Structures are given as structure tokens and as C-alpha cells.
């Protein structure tokens, strides 16, 4: 029985609607969902798809300690983590920026001498802490507590990591305005910027009858000499508002 314990959402077997659920996660994030929606969704994944009895998103406080920003299920013990306990899977997970799990807390009493008795007293037998990573550091953790012994399968850990990344997005959005959107946009913008540079190089090379390498050098020199943004210059060249002869001429005089 302890191999595949039945917690809230039957974690030992694959929920038949997992694909739909993951698609729903993405669908609920289309547009500009507010933070509460994203956090609620993450907790739903914890208590439903990952079968936890309690799930919480905790953030490190700048001065030390933890802050519970969202929780679901039997949350009293989770809430107590932010005031009473300075050790446990969550604390270790944040410190090491890696997933920490205890499949049977009773076996891990020496690892966390204060945390384990408190968790057992609150009725929990297993715990999983997934780091919320930003810029390579853990800013907090997505925490799952189970009232039976529990081993998450690989896909479940991957799912936990994916929703943790979503949590980071949601939280960064709240704290840093449109920062996370910018990260996403940056990948697309950078790609389009490279395409535009290539086309601009071609336009200059084709117009002046020079080699692409020389054309690229001329564009970069023009950008440098005039203190303009590369993207602005390549856009002007491909848009026909900047004469390639001017770009190359500038390089000659430089």
C-alpha cells in the first residue's frame, strides 16, 4: 500500500486528463492572467495532478525567512513554516536551487530534527520542494506535502518544475512590471533582429555591389560612428529610408 499511496489526487496513476490539464494550464495563461489566477492554477496542479494534501508557494524574504504567498489544502503547517521553522526540504531546496524530496519523513528525522517532528505531528508523511528559479538562483519554492509516503514519478517532477517556472513568471510580473514578458519578447525580438540585420547586409551588398562581409562591416561602423541603435539602422536600410551609399560612405570617411 505504501508503494502507491492514494493521496488527494491519486498520484500513483496517470490522470486520464493530464494532457488536457496541461493544455488548460497554457490556455489559462493566454492573454494577461492576473497573478492570483496563475498561483491558483499552480496550486491546483499540486493538489490535483500531483496529489498533494497541501501545496504552497513560498518566497525567500530579502532579510531571511520565508513568506507564504499562496497555499491550498491542509495549509496550517505550511503557514507555520514562515514563522517557526528554519530548516526542511523547502529551505534546503532554496539554498541549493534544486529539487529536494523526502519520500518518508519518518526516515529523515536526523536530516531535519525540528522540521520532521512538526511535519509528522501535523499529519504529513512525505514532502517535495521544487525551487522557483530566477537568474540561476532560487527565489522561493513550490512545496508539496503528502499525508502518506510518496514518491513522485519523473513526469510529475517535470510538471512540478514547469509550473514552478510559471510561478516565477507570475511573481516576477507582479514585482517587476512587464519584466517576464520582456524576457519572452526578447527571444522573438532577437530572432527578428538577426533576420533584419541579414536582410540589411544583403541590401547594402546588392546595392553597392560589395561582398556581404564588407557590407556588414559598413553597417556596424555606421552604427558605431553615429551612435544609433543597430536595430534602428537595419530597419531604416530594409525600409528604404537609409541609403546604402550613405552607410558605406560614412565608413570610408571614418
Amino acid at each position, binding site marked *: 500500500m505504501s508503494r502507491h499511496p492514494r493521496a488527494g489526487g491519486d498520484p500513483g496513476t496517470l490522470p486520464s486528463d493530464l494532457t488536457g490539464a496541461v493544455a488548460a494550464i497554457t490556455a489559462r495563461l493566454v492573454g494577461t492572467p492576473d497573478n492570483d489566477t496563475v498561483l491558483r492554477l499552480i496550486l491546483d496542479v499540486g493538489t490535483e495532478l500531483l496529489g498533494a494534501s497541501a501545496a504552497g508557494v513560498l518566497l525567500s524574504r530579502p532579510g531571511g525567512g520565508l513568506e507564504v504567498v499562496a497555499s491550498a489544502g491542509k495549509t496550517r503547517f505550511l503557514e507555520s513554516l514562515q514563522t517557526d521553522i528554519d530548516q526542511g526540504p523547502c529551505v534546503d531546496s532554496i539554498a541549493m536551487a534544486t529539487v529536494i524530496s523526502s519520500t518518508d519523513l519518518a526516515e529523515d528525522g536526523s536530516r531535519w530534527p525540528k522540521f520532521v517532528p512538526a511535519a509528522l505531528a501535523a499529519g504529513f508523511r512525505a514532502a517535495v520542494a521544487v525551487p522557483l528559479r530566477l537568474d540561476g538562483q532560487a527565489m522561493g519554492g513550490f512545496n508539496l506535502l503528502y499525508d502518506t509516503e510518496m514518491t513522485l514519478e519523473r513526469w510529475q517532477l517535470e510538471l512540478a518544475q514547469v509550473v514552478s517556472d510559471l510561478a516565477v513568471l507570475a511573481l516576477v510580473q507582479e514585482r517587476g512590471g512587464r519584466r517576464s514578458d520582456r524576457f519572452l519578447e526578447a527571444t522573438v525580438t532577437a530572432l527578428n533582429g*538577426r533576420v533584419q540585420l541579414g536582410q540589411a547586409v544583403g541590401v547594402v551588398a546588392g546595392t553597392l555591389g560589395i561582398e556581404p562581409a564588407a557590407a556588414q562591416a559598413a553597417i556596424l561602423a555606421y552604427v558605431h560612428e553615429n551612435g544609433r541603435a543597430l536595430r534602428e539602422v537595419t530597419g531604416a536600410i530594409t525600409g528604404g529610408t537609409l541609403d546604402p551609399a550613405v552607410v558605406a560612405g560614412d565608413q570610408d570617411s571614418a
Partner: protein
Amino acid sequence: MDAAILALRGGSHAEEVLGASEQGAADLAEAQYTVGEGPGVEAFTSGSPVLVPDLNIEQVRWPGFAQAALASGVAAMFAFPLQLGAIRLGTLELIRHSPGGLPSDELRDAVLAADLGAAALLRQARSAEAEGHEFAPEPVRSYQDVNVATGMLAAQLHIGLDDAFTRLRAHAYSRNRSILEVARDVLKRRIVLDELAE
């Protein structure tokens, strides 16, 4: 699965192949880019997975791509958009050499893999910013020569960039060549412009 492609996509001509499990997969990605159609293109534009258990019966849907893919031994293809929130970054495309559908557990894994791919790209973009430089992943196949050739043709033939790109594409397709090869010929001036002037 026999092969996989991870493509970064920005728009109709903006694409880079970030990962390909083998040379053949990168070639297939390029075949798709050359003709401008296929499961990956459709998954990106629609934002939904495009599941093709048997390419043979999709020859009407993507005439150019299906022909090239079947000729290279691809029988089934499954494409998933990489997206987080409203922003779409590219596609994960899975390839099989024998026809057949995707069982639900594999479909689940694929959707998760696509989400992980999107999250990984996001992580890269973040660390690029943290280190103070622009996000510029190393593509396994870059179409930058196509972009340069597009600009060059546009200037030489006095046509728009879109028109120039379309001519490159049409030339490659009609001669059963890859668009990168044609682009490199244009850059090396091995192709007479009249050939592309229609």
C-alpha cells in the same frame, strides 16, 4: 520517436533550428522552411499541436512539404508550439519513419517536453540579460545566408523583401533544391539574376 527538431520561430521568414537530433532532421526542418508549409509552420501559426500520423494522406494539405518529407523517409510528424502565456517562441517537432498515431502517454510527454523547451529558452533569455548581452542561441542551422540573399536580391532587382524571399523560395522549390543552397549561390553570384527575375 526517430528524430526531433527544436525550432525558434519569429514570423514567416524568421526561423532558426536550435536543435535537431540528426542531420536528416535538420534537413527536414530546412525543407519545411524552403516551401513555407508543414506541421511545424502550422503549429506555430495556429498555436495548437498538429498531429500527422500519416503524411501520405496529407499530400493535399502540404503538397510541397509532404513530397519532400516522404522522399526522405518521414512517415509521421507531430508538431507542438513552444509557448508561455501569449508569446510563442517556436516549435518542437517529432518525427517517425513509420506511420501511426501518438498514444496518449506519448502525447502528454511531448506536450510537457514542449513546455520544458519553452521554459528552457526563457531561462536562457534571462541569463543572457543577467550577463548583459542579447539572447542569441547557437542554431544548428541558421538561415542567415537566406536573409542576406533576400536583401541582395531585393536591392538588385528593385523589388520588395517579401517578393525577393518568395523568388528564392520558388527557385529552390522548382529545382528541388534547398533554399540555403540557392541563397549561397546568390551570395557567390553563381546564379544569374535573370533566372530569379521571372
